[in-house]
């Protein structure tokens, strides 16, 4: 009896210990990165400020002939771009710029010695940065409210929850996509320049500067074949309370992540083998 009891105990431990370990690592990483990001809050406030593009685009769209022709109401347009602004703020990925520096200067070496895949640390840094952004984004939204009280709205709790999950999913997808390009740092000294190229389809096809409904049908179909609309358009529409196929949107996000994740693992393995640690 005692024997079988200890077996149950052992099985329970086998299952629990990795989970506990992961939770401890996550808590340590997140809290240390959050403290680090708080130290740089002035910088993060400026980064938050540099995300005003959707608001500028909203101003242009409101008075344009194209908006009337596409059948947008001023309210719908305002909500869409404001939601896109929030989505953009919480799905910013700058991995490649940090990673390039770390790979070039050999700062990656000590991280490789730790019993933790280094990309987790970068992911934690991004999540911590998002948390630091919250007050600044709230402040900017308050500013919008003061200038244009009619523009702000309160999504229902359900909408908000689904919207936040979609933003985080979009963030993960963007992180994976940039990881792919960042892995090229192992082969080239200036891989970050390639990110400029990746930014172009993200800018124009994701719905950040123009709602997808305003696209000509052929271009819209083309855009929907790429992962980019899932990164802004889908979460923004959810938040704005527009009619969207929630299940199809999440399925799309999951499928893209499922394609990119193994690819990034493969590239990481091949890259680390090439990594020669500058100065070593």
């Amino acid at each position, binding site marked *: 009896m005692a024997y079988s009891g200890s077996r149950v105990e052992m099985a329970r431990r086998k299952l629990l210990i990795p989970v506990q370990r992961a939770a401890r690592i996550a808590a340590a990483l997140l809290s240390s990165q959050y403290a680090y990001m708080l130290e740089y809050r002035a910088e993060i406030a400026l980064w938050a400020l*540099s995300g005003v593009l959707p608001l500028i685009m909203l101003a242009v769209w409101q008075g344009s002939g194209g908006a009337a022709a596409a059948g947008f109401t001023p309210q719908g347009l305002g909500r869409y771009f404001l939601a896109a602004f929030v989505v953009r703020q919480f799905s910013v990925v700058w991995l490649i710029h940090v990673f390039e520096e770390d790979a070039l200067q050999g700062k990656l070496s000590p991280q490789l010695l730790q019993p933790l895949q280094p990309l987790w640390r970068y992911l934690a840094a991004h999540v911590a940065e998002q948390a630091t952004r919250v007050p600044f984004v709230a402040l900017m939204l308050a500013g919008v409210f003061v200038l244009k009280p009619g523009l702000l709205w309160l999504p229902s709790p359900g909408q908000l929850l689904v919207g936040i999950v979609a933003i985080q999913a979009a963030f993960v997808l963007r992180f994976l996509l940039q990881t792919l390009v960042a892995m090229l740092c192992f082969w080239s000294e200036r891989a970050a*320049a390639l990110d400029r*190229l990746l930014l172009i389809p993200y800018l124009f096809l994701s719905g950040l500067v123009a709602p997808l409904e305003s696209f000509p049908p052929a271009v819209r179909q083309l855009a929907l074949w790429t992962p980019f609309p899932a990164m802004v358009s889908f979460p923004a529409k959810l938040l704005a309370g527009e009619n969207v196929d929630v299940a199809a949107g999440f399925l799309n996000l999951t499928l893209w992540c499922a394609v990119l994740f193994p690819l990034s693992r493969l590239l990481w393995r091949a890259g680390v083998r090439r990594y020669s640690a500058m100065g070593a």
Partner: protein
Amino acid sequence: MAQRLRRYWRSLRCFWATSLEAELEYQLNLVIELLAVLGNLAGSLFVLVLLAGPTGELGGWSWNSALVVLGIYTLLDGFTSCVLQPNLSKIVSHVQNGTLDFVLLKPIDSQFWLSTRSFSPWGLPGMVAGLALIGWALVQNGTVLSAGGLALAVALLVAGGLILYSLWFLLAGLSMWFVKVWNATEVLRYTLVAGRYPISAYPPALRVVFTLVLPVAFLTTVPAEALLGRASAAWALGSLAAAAICLVGTRLFWQFALRHYTSASS
């Protein structure tokens, strides 16, 4: 005076020749940069088509004249990548690491050195594309420019460039006091995107902001009006005056900033 000018000219040639050589090490960058310029231009044109809609107008500007504005924006963006960004974004690290000391010790004006030391050829494709777009749009529009009109337009373009330089220099120079504002220039770059469209496309309140606070209007709309042969004396004078004030302002600002410079670790 003439001798001094010659010395500065010789230094400038040395600066740019050496940075050109260093940058040409990365030839793949040219391909990437070309693709980026073409992609960005195609995207901007696409969005402009969407904004204009079936009427083909934006803020009372015809399609071709709105293209001139976009061309000037592309030109100025290329200028930023060529000269402003590679130089002025380094001021912050000079202050942070204390290497500004070495700059101040050189027998050359420190503002000149900081503003012209580097040259990145990777902005050139953007400048060429911008000029090409302006030319094409003017021909499509059937605009015939007189010599005087062209001179005014060029003067206003230069004024726009100087205003842009002053804004960058001011923000980068603020690092004397706030070391951590290295990305303030990025904020500037992202908000200047507003210059892609004529100023009248914005709601009235924003037009005031884009003229007085963040002078986007002087950067693209005013030179575009001159190129289209419909410059107004008030705006042209305002632009030239703003450029002059900005230039004198950066000079005074830099002298003031240097008095507050205490070097790193002191």
